[in-house]
């Protein structure tokens, strides 16, 4: 094998290797969308975030508009302070509501925003007025059981149906 041909093959090998790394970074890891896109930060205080994790998507009507930047416990109010990074192209009214939702039965948790009707828009580092907690299955079941129990017991005739 002469030298030029060998150089060509090694060059091709390096090109293919780096193309694979770029493919992994762009197509699989989605590196372009993580930090590169400009956006602004909103804050929301949740009583319970369930299994929400940083980098979880923020969706409006099913469309991803940002990512959860960070989650911290506020040591005064004992609420979860969640920082939401919204892409700069999207703006939402002042009375937008955030809720922790689950995609599918066993799926990942994400934050859903319900846009309100206010004419004023949220700006950088504003706080959302209302944040709905994640549904905790145990609480839901116990509520259901309690209501069933009070419904079924004859000793409490005043119980409402």
């Amino acid at each position: 094998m002469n030298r030029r041909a060998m150089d060509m093959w090694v060059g091709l090998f390096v090109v293919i290797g780096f193309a694979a790394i770029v493919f992994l970074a762009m197509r699989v890891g989605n590196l372009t969308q993580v930090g590169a896109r400009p956006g602004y930060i909103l804050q929301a205080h949740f009583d319970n975030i369930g299994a929400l994790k940083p980098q979880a998507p923020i969706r409006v009507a099913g469309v991803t508009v940002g990512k959860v930047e960070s989650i911290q416990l506020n040591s005064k109010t004992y609420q979860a302070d969640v920082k939401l990074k919204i892409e700069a192209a999207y703006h939402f009214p002042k009375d937008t509501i955030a809720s922790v939702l689950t995609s599918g039965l066993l799926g990942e948790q994400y934050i859903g925003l319900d846009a309100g009707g206010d004419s004023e828009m949220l700006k950088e580092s504003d706080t959302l007025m209302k944040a709905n907690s994640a549904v905790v299955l145990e609480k839901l079941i116990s509520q259901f059981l309690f209501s069933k129990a009070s419904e079924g017991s004859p000793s409490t005739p005043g119980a409402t149906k």
Partner: protein
Amino acid sequence: MMVVIRSGLERIGRGFFNILITLGFATRLLGAILKESGMCWRRFSMIRRELYFSGVLSLVLIAVSGLFVGMVLALQGYDVLKRYGSEAALGVLVSLSLVRELGPVVGGLLFASRAGSAITAEIGLMKATDQLAAMDMMAVSPIARIVAPRFWGGVLSMPLLTALFSMMGIIGGYLVGVKMIGIDEGAFWGQMQATIRFQADILNGLIKGFVFGIAIALTAVFEGYDAKATPEGVSAATTRTVVFSALAVLMLDFILTVFMFRGV
């Protein structure tokens, strides 16, 4: 009775000493390679030749194996995920297992048997035919001229081959998952992109590949350099290269995984 116990203990002790001596020699060889690799980095055509023999000639093997591993992963993963109604997570399953584990590990095992054994056989045969001794005689360091370029060729090839293996595997998973089974294409890529993080998953996978490359290349050149200068010695050394690099890859993988992904 005492004699039996004593001879048994002596054998264990001797085996232990031999392992220590081998490890020490390997460490010394690594030091010598690092010290004397200035020449091959200055004359890069030496490393380029080894990149051809270990990298380019492994390309097809790595690409085809990756493709099939990804395709099998998709089939098996679909079978399990279907039971929980979360077929859309197939992209995550395929890409996460490939990028984190299978790319570096299976790529490393293939690389050890394809390129590592060839390096050992080459160096061992040079030793058996007294070429290394002749070089020494002519004041050409065999470490700088023969061992170091092969070592660096292997170390540089491995991360690229790891990335190629993962990419081909994900393409294979895409072909089976989306084209054959018919999972929604948007969900396949979208969930993958939402889950895989560049630094935590992809970069750590490439670091694994790099570390495995060092382990495999060092094992290969060491076994060749250490081989008995006979035909049997060379064949035994080639076998040892494949066995020890496979063990080293799997053990290092456990250690690296503990450090990289414990908190995740």
